[in-house]
Structures are given as C-alpha cells and as structure tokens.
C-alpha cells in the first residue's frame, strides 16, 4: 500500500515565550543546578543478557544488551570483540511522528553512544564475538543522549560485560549568565550554548565531550564542574540499582 499523505495539525512552536528562569526557578520549578526526577531500573527485558530502563522525567529510554555472541560480520583485522550499538526512536517519541527507520537523528545518537562506550568496554574480554547494545527511546523530551548513554552503560554492567568503569553522561545549557543542568527540549532549543559530557566517574576520565554555541573559558569551566558532579550523581544511582538487581549470568541460556 502506498504511504498516506498526511500532516500534523499541531503547532510545534511555542506561542507565549515565558522566561526560562523566573525568581531563580525554571519553568518546571527546578533550580538551575537541579536534575529532573530520575528513575533507573535494571533487568527489564527477560531474554537479554542485560537490560536497563532510564527515565529523566519525561525522557524515557530502554536498552538491551545481547552477547557476547557470534558476530554477524567478522572482522579480519582485529581479534578483539565487536561492540555494536543501535539507537532507535519510537514513532511516538517526539512531538512529530517519525517513521521507524534509521534517520539522521538515530545515526547521530548511535555514533555518540559508540564513542562514549568504546573507551570503557574491555573488548579484549570477548575476542571474535560481538556484544550488541540495542536502545529504544520511548519518549524524547530533552537530554536523550545522556539518558541513552547512562542506560546503555547500566545494561552492559547488568549483562556482566567487563568494563573499566561505568559511563554516565550529563548535559547543560547556558542561557545568558545562567547555567542550566539537564535541560528539557524547550530549554535546549532556546539555549545559547550546549555542553555535553560523558564521563567515567570513578577514574575521572572523559570518554566524550562536546560543546556548541557561545562559551567563555570561565563558563566552560563552570559547565564542566556542573556536569562532572551530575555524572558522579548518576553513577551512584546506577550503582545502587545494580546492587539491588545483580547480574543474572548463567541462570538461563541467554543471547545465543
């Protein structure tokens, strides 16, 4: 059947432009340096070797890890294991319906996730095999990238894949003089600069960092400090969660 020609009747641009900050608080009643409500759960997908679900309030991400298992493509050059990441968005995740195919957004997120995790996963520990990280974004309301990375790293740990450290990620936006931690999509659109950090908090090593827009060296340093604290906070949440639901290796045939 030919695809229907349809359009959305909903307007996406905000009509009344309310200030991002009033009386020191944001539109959703948060302080500038406050996270949204975070929920992390591991062990959400029964047939996966490891899985996790992460919620930054209305940004919801789910991740399954399969393997180590037989790789679909063999790598002739290296004997190290392959880390394959794939990020998809549900059709109803954003304001406008998206078709369920790999578009630019999915590819960008996949690359970002791959970059952020590569440094942490010990690929020598599963030679010639592959570990597949499958992510589905159920709802996107800003901060997808940090949620995706945190969720994937929790799922990898839950799967018992050897890693140097967990990777957690965090974003910040600057609006005028103010720095906003964990911006929503509305705040992201109106920010003058965006800062993104993926960190291995225990070893304090950066796996991925990006910076766009206008930044002064001073505001950059502040953002770095703010996001580092954010990543450390997320790290302890993920660790608490992993302690509560320990990896369930060898209880069932998995990931074949």
């Amino acid at each position: 059947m030919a695809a229907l020609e349809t359009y959305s009747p909903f307007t996406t641009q905000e009509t009344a432009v309310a200030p991002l900050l009033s009386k020191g608080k944001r539109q959703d009643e948060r302080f500038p340096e406050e996270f949204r409500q975070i929920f992390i759960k591991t062990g959400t997908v029964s047939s996966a070797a490891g899985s996790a679900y992460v919620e930054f309030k209305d940004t919801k991400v789910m991740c399954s890890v399969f393997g180590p298992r037989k790789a679909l493509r063999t790598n002739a050059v290296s004997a190290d294991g392959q880390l394959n990441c794939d990020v998809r968005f549900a059709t109803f995740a954003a304001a406008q319906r998206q078709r369920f195919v790999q578009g630019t957004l999915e590819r960008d997120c996949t690359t970002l996730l791959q970059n952020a995790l590569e440094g942490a996963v010990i690929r020598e520990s599963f030679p010639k095999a592959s570990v597949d990280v499958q992510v589905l974004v159920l709802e996107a309301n800003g901060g997808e990238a940090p949620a995706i990375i945190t969720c994937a790293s929790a799922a990898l740990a839950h799967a018992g894949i050897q890693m140097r450290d967990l990777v957690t990620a965090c974003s910040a936006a600057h609006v005028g003089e103010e720095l906003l931690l964990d911006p929503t999509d509305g705040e992201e659109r109106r920010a003058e600069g965006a800062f993104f950090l993926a960190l291995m908090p225990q070893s304090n090593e950066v796996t991925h960092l990006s910076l766009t827009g206008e930044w002064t060296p001073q505001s950059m340093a502040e953002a770095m400090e703010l996001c580092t604290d954010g990543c450390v906070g997320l790290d302890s949440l993920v660790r608490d969660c992993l302690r509560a639901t320990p990896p369930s290796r060898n209880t069932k045939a998995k990931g074949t």
Partner: protein
Amino acid sequence: MSTSHALDAEAYRKIYPAEFYKKFLDEKVRPDGRPLGRCRATSVAAGAVSKADGSALVKIGNTTMIAGVKLEIMRPTDDASDVGTVEVTVEMPPLCSASVRSGRPTEEAQSASQRISEVLTHPAVFDLTQLCIAKGQAAWVAYLDIFCLDADGNIFDAALLAAVAALSDVTLPAVTVLEDGRVTADTAAVAEAQANAKDAMQTGEENAKGTQILTSQRQLSLKCVPIGLTCGLNQGHLIADPCAEESGLLDTTITVILNESGELVSVYKPGGNVGASDAILMDCIEMSRLRYKEVSPLLEKVLGKGMSE
C-alpha cells in the same frame, strides 16, 4: 564427582526440550508452575507516553508491549469521503529478543500488524466515521504503533490489548479549517473559530467566517471491546498463553477473539503440523470466555468507563 540434580534438569531441558516438556504436560502442569489453562499475570496501564495522543503499556508475564497513537490529518479519497483510517504497525525492534537481530521486520510482527488492523478497522468494532472532520475535505489518521519491549511469547494477545487500550485513550482535539484548507489544532485559531461560530449562531446568518468548519474535542470509542486468547497445541494438550520457550515446541496455535457479548470477532489458526478438531476449537472458545472475564476489568479500570454492559 558430585553433580547436583538441578544441573541435570537444566541440561536435560536444553538437550531434550520436547521430552522435558512432555514430562510436565503428562502431569497437567507447565515448567513455570502454571496449570495448562492459566494465563500469566496481566497488567494494563493507559497514558504511558505523554508525547503520544493516546498510549498504553501492557504486560502479560514478561511479554511487554507499549502502544502509542499519533494523530495526523489526511484528505479522504472520493470513494470513502466520510471516514478516517487507523494505521496499525506492530514493531519488534532488536531490543525485544535475542532472536531478532537488526534488519527487516519479523514475520510475527507483520502478521500481528495485519490481524490487529483487520480487527480494529472492522465496522462492527470501530466506527471509522468518528475520524471524519469535514466530509470530502479532511479526516483523522490515527497512526497506532505498537512496540514490543520484551518478547516472551504470545505477542499477539499483548499487542491487541495494548492497541485497544491506546485507541480508547485517544481524545481528538478541537480543530478548525484554515483559509488555505489546512486543518489546525492551534488553540488561538480554534478559539477564534469558536467565537465566530457563536456569533453566527446569535445573528442567525451564515457569513463567510461562520462557515469555518469546526469540530469539538471528543473521545474515541470502540463499538465493542475485542479481547483475544492464544492457545497452543502440544502433543494433544491445549495450553493457554504460551511463553517463548513453549512457543518453540507447539504443533500449532489457535487465537480466538471475542467481544463483551461473548460473540466471535475473529478466529485464527495459522497452519502448523496438526489440525484442530471441533472439540478443541470449542475448548478454545470456552477458555477465551474465561480470559475475557479476567482481562475486561483491567481495561475498564484504566479506561474509566463501564464497557461490560
């Protein structure tokens, strides 16, 4: 060397799954402890995704489905000028199971999409004219996408339940048609059209602005609530709601969908190694009736309306 009995059982299960399973069936019980006719714990939650216009999360045991509806506008075709459509897609992304690896949609998902679409767009189940905005000009398209988050057997029943809950969760917004013929749900434009319509009513004349087509906000509703039960046949035993491990051992499956009056909406038996006798079909229908009684209170609770009368 001491080997524990637990280990032996696990090894036996892997090497001889059919024999392992038969030992349970002969005792009229299943490896997960269920009697043959019992379904796994089921839950339904509506409004799981705030960005969707209607949504639902359904769990049957481990099997998890999330359904979301996105509303868009289309121009109806000439031969069906007063109806909209519901576009159903069941997706099984690679995240849901180890056996799905990236690439084409799975056969199971495609077959489920097709069957759910047939059930939900049947005039006895869903009146497509409620999606009409202006005859011949504009109608709603409800894109109903159902994502499998965890595939542990019986995908179809969970997907249908999620689809029904998500579709009933939809409220069509008030819309008005702009001068260029496009439909908008923009609050300012709708408010203006409402004011114009009121003026036209009061003055009793139909001026140009008063004829702007305006539909008010309304909830979608189903004429009847279809709920399905899939049973599997294994070595002559009929088992309800098979999990993923059981599905691999089945000779065939039979899905019976009923409505609240206990009437058949759909029966589906997709081939398989064996046929199903009249007696087995009757058993399936009877089990489906019992299942309906289990599930309909869950749906009623989330949709907040009496649907059993």
